[in-house]
C-alpha cells in the first residue's frame, strides 16, 4: 500500500481522475450535449465538484489516522487546489454569463443575497490558501501559523454547504447529504482535539508508560 501511495504514477493518476469532471464537461460542450441550459449545467457541475473536492481534502487527515496511511498527505494539496480550480470556474460562470461582468450587479448580489454572500465568502477564504499552498510559503509562515491559516478551509466548507442549502427550492436531500459529510469530518477533528487535550496531561504524569 505504501509503495502504491508514494509512487509518482499514483499522483499522476489522481491528477487525471480529478481533471476528469472538467474534461467530461469540455467533451460534452464540443458535442453540444450539455442539455437545454448548458450554462446552468456547467455551473451546477463545477459547484458540485468544488464541494466534493473540499470534502476529499478534508477527509485526508482523518483517513490518514484511521487507516494508518500517513502517505495520503501527498494528495492533499492537489485535491485542495482542484477544489479551488472548480470554484474559480464556478465563479467565472457567475461573473460572465450570469452577471455579464457587471461589477455593480455583482456587488448588489453579494450585498443583498445571503446565498451569494456565503458562496462568495467561501471563494474569498480559499484564495489565500491556494496562494500559500507551496512549500516556500509553509517555510515563510512557519508550520504553526500556516496550519492556523489553512484551518479556514473548515469555514469555507461550512459556507459552501450553506450556499448549496439556500440555493435549492425545496428538495434538500443533496445539500443535507453534503452537510452530513462536512459535519462528520469536522466533528472527527473536534473529537481528535478533545482526546489529545485529555491525554496530554495524562502523558505528562505518566511519562514511562509506553503507548
Amino acid at each position: 500500500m505504501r509503495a502504491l501511495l508514494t509512487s509518482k504514477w499514483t499522483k499522476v493518476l489522481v491528477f487525471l481522475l480529478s481533471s476528469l469532471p472538467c474534461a467530461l464537461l469540455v467533451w460534452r460542450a464540443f458535442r453540444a450535449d450539455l442539455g437545454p441550459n448548458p450554462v446552468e449545467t456547467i455551473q451546477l457541475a463545477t459547484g458540485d465538484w468544488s464541494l466534493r473536492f473540499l470534502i476529499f481534502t478534508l477527509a485526508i487527515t482523518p483517513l490518514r489516522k484511521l487507516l494508518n496511511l500517513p502517505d495520503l498527505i501527498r494528495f492533499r494539496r492537489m485535491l485542495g487546489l482542484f477544489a479551488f480550480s472548480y470554484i474559480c470556474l464556478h465563479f467565472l460562470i457567475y461573473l460572465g454569463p450570469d452577471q455579464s461582468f457587471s461589477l455593480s450587479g455583482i456587488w448588489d448580489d453579494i450585498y443583498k443575497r445571503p446565498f451569494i454572500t456565503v458562496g462568495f465568502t467561501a471563494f474569498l477564504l480559499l484564495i489565500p490558501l491556494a496562494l500559500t499552498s507551496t512549500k516556500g510559503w509553509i517555510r515563510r509562515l512557519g508550520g504553526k501559523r500556516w496550519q492556523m491559516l489553512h484551518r479556514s478551509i473548515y469555514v469555507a466548507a461550512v459556507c459552501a454547504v450553506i450556499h448549496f442549502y439556500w440555493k435549492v427550492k425545496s428538495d434538500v436531500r443533496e445539500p443535507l447529504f453534503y452537510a452530513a459529510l462536512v459535519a462528520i469530518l469536522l466533528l472527527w477533528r473536534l473529537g481528535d482535539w478533545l482526546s489529545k487535550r485529555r491525554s496530554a496531561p495524562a502523558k505528562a504524569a505518566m511519562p514511562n508508560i509506553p503507548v
Partner: protein
Amino acid sequence: MLIRRAPDLTYADVTPKSVYLNRRKFLRTMGITSAMAFASKGLWELAAPTHKVSANTKLTGVIKGPFNTDEKQTSYEDVTHYNNFYEFGTDKRDPAKYAQNFRTSPWTVSIEGEVKTPRKFTMDEILKLAPLEERIYRHRCVEAWSIVVPWIGFSFSALAKLVEPTPKAKYVAFQSFFDPKQMPQAKYGGIDFPYVEGLRLDEAMHPLALLCVGMYGETLPNQDGAPVRMILPWKYGFKSIKSLVKIRFQEKQPPTTWNLFAPNEYGFYSNVNPTVDHPRWSQATERRLGDIFKRKTLMFNGYADQVASLYTGMDLKKNY
C-alpha cells in the same frame, strides 16, 4: 475538571490483534469503496444520457390564435427535457424519465363550487369544447429561465362560461392530479401534494389565460403536464398548473402550493416583475434556454399591454 478512574481491565479484555487489524482493513475497504461510489455517481451524472419523449398524438383543425410572439421558438427537445414537475422528481431531467408511464387516459376534470352547472368533463369533451388555437407564448420561470412555446388550447373563459359562475365566485382554485403510486418521486419534492394553484376570477377570465391541451402540433407530453393544464404567460411558470383534475369557483382566495411552502418567496399573484426580486435571486434578468448570456425580463413578461389593467391601484411590491 473531571478526573476519571481507569476501569479495571484485565488481559482478557484486550482485543486480539487479528480482529484489530481486520477492523483497519475493513475501515480501509469501506473508505475506498464509498469514495469510489461517491465519485463515480458524479461522473455518471456528467456523462448523462438523454431520454426519449412519451408518445404523442397529432392535433387536427388547430387555428392560429391571438397574442402570438414571433420570437424564436425553443426546441421541442429542450421543452421536454427541462421540466419542473415535482411530482416526478426535482431534477429538471427527472420528469422526462419518470413520467413516461403516467396514465392520462381516461381523464376527467371536475368543475365545482360557485357555478350554476357543476359537472365533469372528459378529455374528449374538453377537446371539442372550443376551437383549438395555437398560442405562441413566452413562458418565464421564477428561477430566471425562459422559453417560447407554441401551446395549443383555448381561453379558459370558454369553459368557465359553459358552467356559468355565480355572482359569489371571486376566485378559481385549481388542483393537479396526484397518485403516490404513479409518482413515487413526489415524496422527495419537499412540497405538499396534490399541487394547488389559484387565480382571481378576472385573471382567469382574461383571454390570455389558456386552458392548454397540446404543444408543437401535438397533445401534451406527460412531462409537460398532460393531458390538460393552464398556461398564464404573464405569471411565473409555477402558476401554470399541470395535469388538472379539479377546478373550483369560490368566494375566498384559495391556498397555493408554493405560497404555502414559502410565503415570503412566492406570492399569490406571482406576476412576472423585474423590479421585485425573489429574496434569494434577482428577477431583473432571465436566460432564454439555449442562450449563454441573460436578457432583461419584461414587466408582466411582455404582456403588460394586455394585463396591466387587472392590477391598477395595487401595490405590486406587496402583492408579489
